[in-house]
């Protein structure tokens, strides 16, 4: 799609070129239900800027740590890196930074004052808590009522610990509460208090976020046996360490994620045989593909295209489940409408049955209230405004949306909070759901030019060891791995933007672009969907007619100046270091590492460093400059080594012209050779310059 033209005048009206990133969204951000600035935080992680990264994540996603473990990551599914090799492991790098920082390491953006109305929220799941956070930030006083003794909703009660350890969830809950959110556990609305009570207590609005707390059950013969468990109840009992008895041969009915959770939990409880039976075939199964895979590895067997008709009980014990053949699950209109062949039945031997065929709401909170329900028994609500039939009572999350994930619940909760705010401010509830357009796909001829880098491998416990306990099944990335993985990001949409009134169509950008992206017609045209954001053209443009969307071109000069100013020495030296292989550095030397009088300025790639910027460093008073680039072939972008060599040579010539020795500007190609080599090169380079 056509990008808009940018002129010098328009640029002057922007506070930062990064505002241009709002014109089109990268697919990760677009697909994310809360529209977190994924590209933004992945870039921050790539630079070791952990605090800024987690703050950016939490700006939209209160359940950062939980999602780092269990999110279904539509961002990754849509990641354009997938057209080059494999998507960026966004969930894994998010997990790394959210767990590294914990609740204490993420900034709490508390409202200046919390003196607006009290709002009651029913349910402390992701929807309710996200709404509470948003309301607290807006200055309200939210109190979340939770019927269980622990806050967190399904993540606390029905997600097994091997997928989501309790401490991880607690990070998110603690961080949210630190914003002035009160959580009252073991209070069940509908039983301990009614909605009317809440209103009488002074809550000016009530937000129902009760979720889908119950399992749907099949009304078949034998379903009332003791050893037939609703899946959610099964998982919840275990979550609270209540004893649950299962036999040796467990049959799970269902093909979704809850079924997978139940199956894998049964294995860990010691069942010898665990079978999951569902109506769908392998492709149709609603469970996430990697959950199916992990279940298979751990020893869960699958029976596809079967529907239970009877739980056969003999002598007081479950003997088997009779199941009929499923001919088809979805009809022509893709609706769930299974058809069966009753003449084709099998008997699946088992002694325990867990029903995981779907969840339903527990409407207990509606006890003695004015809430209305439709002819199918579902809560009546307004999709656009989150309002129920009762004045001042709103709803959000799975209780009104289709069953979804944690991140989808966060989005719903936040939206409902905005509705509540508008209502309590006596404004009409109108929420703008419009999004900027999504950036287009990356064409094959550009994708082919991007150097391939293998996706990080997440180390997991071997399946046979995993099932022995409820310990987490895979390990966090290390800092180095997280940085390396984040550097695979293509920075979609963050690349070059031509100032159409300054471009002289000299063809330079076209000639030096390693990806053959610019087209020069009237002026250079660089499409944001194609540009790989290497910055090489910006470093060359003879009329300063190209800026970057994803970063402020003047930032580097400002950062360098500040670094220089902070140095205390007779001969100050600046080292520009390619950060593409930098490990665990926060884009500057660690204390104890510093070389006297040497300031280090890290860049994502040397493609961004221009000859002009090198001159400016000398102009600002540096006695010498080191440029530490990568060896050829190890750059983030192709041809960077050659380009920076030429720029350094050009700068050396220009310095020589004014009597500054070329020895005061040195290029060393060792940025990819590890920390020790780098530190040595910096020390030696500084010494050599001082000796001049």
């Amino acid at each position: 799609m056509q990008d808009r033209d940018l002129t010098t005048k328009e640029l002057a009206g922007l506070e930062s070129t990064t505002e241009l990133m709002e014109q089109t969204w990268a697919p990760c951000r677009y697909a994310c239900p809360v529209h977190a600035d994924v590209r933004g935080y992945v870039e921050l992680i790539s630079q070791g800027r952990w605090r800024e990264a987690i703050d950016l994540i939490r700006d939209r996603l209160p359940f950062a740590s939980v999602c780092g473990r269990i999110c279904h990551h539509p961002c990754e599914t849509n990641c354009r890196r997938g057209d080059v090799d494999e998507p960026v492991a966004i969930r894994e790098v998010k997990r790394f930074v959210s767990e590294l920082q914990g609740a204490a390491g993420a900034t709490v953006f508390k409202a200046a004052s919390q003196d607006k109305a009290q709002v009651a929220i029913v349910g402390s799941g992701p929807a309710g808590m996200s709404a509470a956070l948003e309301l607290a930030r807006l200055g309200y006083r939210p109190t979340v009522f939770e019927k269980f003794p622990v806050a967190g909703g399904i993540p606390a009660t029905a997600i097994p610990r091997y997928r989501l350890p309790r401490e991880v969830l607690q990070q998110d809950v603690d961080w949210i509460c630190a914003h002035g959110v009160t959580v009252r556990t073991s209070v069940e609305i509908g039983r301990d208090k009614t909605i009317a009570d809440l209103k009488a207590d002074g809550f000016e609005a009530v937000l129902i976020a009760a979720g889908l707390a119950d399992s749907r059950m099949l009304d078949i013969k034998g379903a009332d046996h003791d050893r037939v468990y609703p899946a959610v109840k099964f998982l919840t009992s275990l979550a609270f360490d209540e004893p649950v008895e299962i036999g040796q041969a467990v049959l799970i009915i269902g093909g979704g994620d809850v079924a997978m959770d139940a199956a894998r939990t049964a294995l860990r409880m010691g069942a010898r045989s665990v079978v999951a039976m569902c109506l769908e075939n392998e492709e149709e199964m609603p469970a996430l593909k990697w959950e199916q895979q992990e279940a298979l590895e751990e020893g869960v067997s699958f029976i596809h295209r079967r529907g239970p008709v009877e739980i056969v009980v003999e002598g007081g014990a479950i003997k088997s489940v009779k199941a009929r053949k499923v001919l088809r699950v979805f009809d022509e209109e893709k609706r769930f409408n299974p058809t069966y062949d009753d003449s084709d039945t099998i008997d699946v031997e088992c002694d325990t049955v867990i029903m995981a065929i779907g969840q339903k709401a527990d409407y207990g909170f509606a006890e003695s209230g004015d809430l209305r329900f439709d002819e199918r028994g579902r809560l009546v609500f307004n999709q656009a405004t989150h309002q129920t039939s009762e004045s001042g009572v709103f709803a959000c999350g799975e209780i009104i949306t289709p069953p979804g994930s944690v991140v989808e619940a966060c989005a719903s909760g936040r939206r409902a909070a905005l509705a509540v705010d508008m209502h309590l401010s006596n404004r009409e509830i109108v929420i703008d759901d419009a999004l900027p357009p999504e950036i287009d796909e990356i064409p094959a001829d550009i994708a082919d030019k991007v150097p391939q880098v293998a996706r990080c491998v997440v180390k997991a416990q071997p399946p046979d060891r995993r099932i022995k306990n409820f310990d987490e099944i895979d390990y966090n990335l290390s800092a180095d791995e997280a940085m390396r993985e984040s550097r695979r990001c293509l920075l979609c949409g963050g690349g070059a933007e031509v100032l159409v009134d300054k471009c002289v169509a000299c063809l330079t950008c076209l000639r030096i672009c390693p990806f053959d992206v610019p087209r020069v017609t009237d002026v250079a045209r660089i499409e944001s969907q194609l540009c790989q954001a290497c910055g090489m053209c910006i470093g060359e443009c003879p009329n300063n007619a190209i800026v970057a969307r994803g970063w402020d071109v003047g930032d580097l000069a400002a950062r360098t100046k500040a670094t220089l100013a902070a140095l205390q020495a007779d001969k100050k030296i600046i080292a520009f270091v390619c950060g593409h292989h930098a490990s665990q550095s926060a884009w500057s030397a660690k204390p104890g590492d510093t070389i006297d009088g040497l300031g280090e300025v890290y860049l994502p790639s040397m493609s961004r460093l221009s000859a002009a910027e090198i001159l400016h460093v000398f102009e600002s008073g540096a006695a010498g400059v080191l440029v530490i680039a990568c060896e050829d072939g190890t750059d983030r972008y192709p041809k960077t080594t050659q380009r920076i060599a030429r720029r350094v040579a050009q700068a050396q010539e220009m310095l020589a012209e004014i009597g500054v020795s070329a020895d005061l500007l040195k290029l060393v190609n060792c940025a990819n050779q590890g920390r020790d080599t780098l530190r040595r090169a910096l020390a030696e380079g500084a010494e050599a310059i001082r000796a001049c």
Partner: protein
Amino acid sequence: MIVAERKPMEEIVEMLAPYKKVLVLGCGGCVAVCLTGGERQAEMLASQLRILARRQDRQASFTEDCITRQCEREFFDDLNENVEDFDAVLSLACGAGVQYMSEVFPSVPILPAMNTTFLGSNVAPGKWDEYCRGCGDCVLAWTGGICPITKCSKSLINGTCGGTNNGKCEVNDEMDCGWLLIYKRLKELGRLDEYRKLRPARDHRKDRGGGVRRLILSEMTEEEEEAAQ
């Protein structure tokens, strides 16, 4: 397009010696396209001059700016700086720009940072070759698209001089003989009949011999319109 090269630094330093407050002015025309005089080059030159001034302990200020073209009056309105505030302007424009700016701002010395060299083409990235001398009487139709004024050291117009040595020019043996190139091209084109035609002596008034040349497009001029009113 016009190709210009930056003058040697010693010359620039010499011409700037009397001035303390200098505007370094880039041009977004031909010199930007041949990567020698655009805004970036003005920025870098100003940077060099500041470094030099500091090294020489000289009090001098250098401010950079750039406009679309220096050969047209209206573009001077876009200057971020006020020219009269400066002791001198170091212009990176071609000779036309420098002179024209001098006329627009007669009270301020406009100094040339560039040597304007030739009319040429970008034959390869980073490489520009001379193609045209601006002789005002183009004969490319008869010479297979190769200019004898430019490519022949003697600017002959009726074939080789007899000093061709193995296809090279006797004046500059690194140069191909222009007329040999023309002969070969006309042969390729099957137009050797043009080579045989005798061309009359050139009217040098169309070239430098006529003094300062001028182009007038009467449909665009303003004086006549005023006169007509």
